[in-house]
């Protein structure tokens, strides 16, 4: 039975979903870009404000598990979506054609992500994952007149569908063995050791989710889609979508013991190693910034897979901390790309030459970018270091020396291309720059958001104690 208490626990989801409806109705009534963006932002902010009300949840609504992990991930989803909305407004100002539907898609996907991180039932997991993915096809192909954008959308659609098939097959296998779809019952039905079908089912689910996380053998779509999609859609894909899928994977591993069977752990370890090294190696000679960031995000999720392998209490905390640092950093890095590409004018400014000597033209924007790249590289005093510190600590605590070695080697390789981009920002020679940020970028809300993100990177790196306390508190509430 659905009670009032249940409604309160899903309040953020309801608010985001109804904002989507309001935006849709608004678009039908009268188009206004600024108002639409404002309504979307307001909806997300209200959703963010109601999140703390959901805890402590006495009981969760059916199919869902509103616990510390869900609230933590929900917060991150909403914050990232908010930043995306702000940047989208900046970006879409110059777009010829309807601008408002982008926010509609974005809100729907956000609702999907919110439901996904709290899902406790395989059906719920599937529906919310699709709710997250479907609007993304639209968002990626939004500037469909640009060939690459259309290509990105279609590519993501096809490969996503393939991944979904894997996922469904895995779920079907598990269902045939246990007769249940909700996680608690699946776990309960399996007192004895899992057999080959169960393991195959689990492995197929990992593969299906691995597609979304672009874990290495399933990563081929990533660079093209990242490059082709409009910058805000790419941001959303790199942050919200990945984060939500990762959290649900962690939830599966934490809830269902057969996910942490020896065989599957070995499989994930191998995938993690491949992902760390592959992502970094492929990024080495990349001259396109969006592709480079795509590969870099592959590598980062490779590091994070250490948490999936370990699958203990510290793993939840690590995931929380790492995701926060990753989000702040990625938002800042992609944000700069978005600002330089704003307002929309055909293809995004993603070639490295555009950024050559940025520091001498736009010192503060280049400083934001430098800070975010230092953070991606995991240099101390930035947020990224705290994340990397946690991952290495987790690997060491769990005695996963191979993974620790992989993280160290991956980071060392990664430095090469992070440094390359960073130093490009400072090289004075006039490049073949086609675009530049508008002069007033710093006083616009997008610019202010960038400054805030850069400040957040530094503050989290210098004084991470509050963040750690928050994550630790919430992961203590995880079931």
């Amino acid at each position, binding site marked *: 039975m659905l009670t009032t208490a249940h409604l309160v626990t899903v309040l953020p989801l309801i608010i985001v979903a109804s904002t989507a409806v309001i935006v849709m109705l608004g678009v039908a009534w009268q188009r206004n870009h600024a108002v639409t963006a404002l309504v979307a932002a307001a909806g997300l902010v209200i959703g963010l404000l109601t999140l703390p009300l959901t805890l402590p949840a006495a009981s969760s609504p059916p199919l869902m598990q509103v616990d510390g992990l869900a609230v933590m991930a929900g917060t991150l989803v909403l914050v990232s979506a908010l930043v995306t909305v702000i940047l989208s407004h900046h970006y879409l100002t110059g777009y010829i054609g309807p601008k408002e539907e982008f926010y509609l898609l974005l809100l729907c996907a956000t609702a999907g992500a919110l439901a996904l991180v709290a899902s406790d039932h395989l059906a719920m997991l599937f529906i919310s994952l699709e709710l997250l993915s479907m609007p993304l096809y639209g968002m990626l192909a939004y500037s469909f007149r640009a060939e690459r954008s259309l290509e990105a959308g279609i590519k993501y659609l096809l490969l996503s569908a393939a991944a979904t098939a894997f996922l469904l097959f895995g779920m079907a296998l598990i269902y045939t063995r246990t007769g249940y779809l909700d996680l608690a019952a699946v776990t309960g039905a399996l007192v004895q050791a899992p057999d080959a079908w169960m393991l195959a089912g689990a492995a197929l689910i990992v593969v299906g989710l691995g597609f979304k996380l672009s874990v290495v053998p399933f990563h081929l779509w990533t660079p093209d889609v990242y490059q082709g999609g409009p910058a805000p859609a790419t941001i959303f894909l790199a942050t919200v979508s990945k984060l939500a899928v990762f959290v649900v994977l962690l939830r599966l591993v934490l809830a269902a013991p057969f996910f942490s069977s020896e065989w599957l752990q070995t499989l994930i370890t191998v995938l993690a190693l491949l992902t760390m090294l592959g992502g970094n190696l492929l990024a080495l000679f990349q001259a396109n910034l969006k592709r480079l960031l795509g590969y870099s995000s592959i590598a980062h999720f490779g590091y994070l897979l250490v948490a999936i392998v370990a699958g203990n209490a510290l793993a939840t905390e690590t995931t929380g901390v790492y995701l926060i640092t990753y989000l702040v950093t990625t938002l800042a890095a992609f944000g700069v790309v978005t600002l330089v590409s704003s307002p929309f004018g055909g293809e995004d400014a993603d070639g490295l030459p555009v950024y050559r000597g940025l520091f001498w033209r736009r010192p503060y924007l280049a400083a934001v970018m430098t800070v975010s790249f*230092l953070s991606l590289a995991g240099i*101390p005093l930035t947020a990224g270091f705290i994340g990397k510190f946690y991952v290495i*600590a987790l690997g060491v605590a769990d005695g996963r020396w191979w993974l620790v070695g992989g993280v160290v080697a991956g980071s060392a390789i990664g430095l090469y291309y992070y440094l390359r981009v960073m130093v490009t920002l400072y090289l004075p020679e006039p490049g073949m720059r086609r675009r530049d940020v508008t002069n007033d970028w710093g006083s616009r809300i997008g610019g202010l958001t960038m400054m805030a993100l850069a400040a957040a990177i530094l503050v989290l790196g210098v004084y991470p104690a509050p963040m750690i306390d928050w994550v630790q508190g919430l992961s203590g509430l995880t079931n």
Partner: protein
Amino acid sequence: MILVWLILIPFLGGLLCWQADRWGEQAPRWIALATMLFVLVISLWLWATGDFALPQGAQNQWLLEWRTPWIPRFGVEVHLAIDGLSLILVALTGFLGALAVLCSWREITHRIGFFHLNLLWILGGVVGVFLALDLFLFFLFWEMMLVPMYFLIALWGHSGSPGHTRIRAATRFFIYTQASGLLMLVAILSLVFIHFGNSGEWTFSYDALRQADVPEAMAPWLMLGFFVAFAVKLPVVPFHGWLPDAHAQAPTAGSVDLAGILLKTAAYGMLRFGLPLFPEESRAFAPVAMMLGLIGIIYGAVLACGQQDIKRLIAYTSISHMGFVLIAIYSGSELAIQGAVVLMVAHAFSSAGLFILSGQLYERIHTRDMSTMGGLWGRIPVLPGFTLCFVAASLGMPATANFVGEFMILFGTFPTAPVVVVIASAGLVLAAIYSLILMQRVHFGPVYRQGALAGPDWREYIMMLSLLALVILVGLYPQPLLDITAGLSASIAELFAEGSLGVVAGEVR
């Protein structure tokens, strides 16, 4: 609190320099100079007022200490402390920092404010390394000082021949040091988790981790984790690949910092962390370390003889000199460890002098290639004379500080490892050879090109004279240095002595 200020002053000064760019060209230089002199004055004041009597038993070995919680989740603290060794090195940082500012007065002509920001942040990071006692904090500063150094080399460096670009050199430097640093992070974390497993207490504190009971199978690996990080920075021979390029492409100020201070952080790390955390493993490792030191001495000296680029030559001599320091550190003799400290200081002076001189030559003749020099003695007033003095110091001429250091090292190591000393002494002969090659090719020999060049101005005089005075002063009267570090060297020698007693007892049984 004064320790916090020692670290903060360079960082704040750096930010100020960056902003001071808009007030004119000279403003950042003067601010940077004042900042570094301020650090120097504070450390000298600490030296003058401090009491460096040998610590008695369990008495606190630190002159000043400051701690406050930072990340309670893992028991990370901001824990700073200073003792004799740190004090010397901090003072050295202040002094060489001021010199680095001075020597780039003419050399750096564009983006001056940002240059000084990077320069001062390196120095701030280095001071942090010398003061940090919490392992997390130490690691943080250790890694952090690399970023501004990277920019210094990559943005203001000299473009070398194709394949030796400055960005490549800078990237190489960064990746070497960062990757080895991560190994150290893994080792630190393992140590912390082992300590947590034993005592249930999260801490990165130096004193607590020294007591950690590391399982025997793990300990050598952890020790190696630390050693590799320090070995890359020192550099010890198989890990030295970054050094010649970084030195050759760096601007003069960068080379001065790199040779003068950054290499010393490695020796400091070994003395402060490497040996005390793993005394037994280090003792077992000592023969290997000494062997590596020997290889470094010979290899560095031989390669120095074959260089065409004057800065690369000096860079290779650094490898050779640091070989002596490595041998001394692992000799376990109090005398040799004190000698290592003296040699560190002496090498900082002499190599800084040589790098500054080669920078001044570059400003005059715009090349670092020794095959296009020759006969400069007659063309430049005064500078060749200074070069001769520093070359003499570098080869360990008596009455210079380098002589005292090398003599103490060899003398102190002889009882424990006579063979090593004998071979290392051969390195001194090679030192004479490369030093004379440097002198001969640059200042004597056939005149490559005619025409008189400008002599030193007041700024260059000040730099050279102050360095030279210090080299000779320490050479003639090293006692203050020895007094201030006696406590530390004694305690490290003790670590080795305890260990060796154990072995002797074992053999008797």
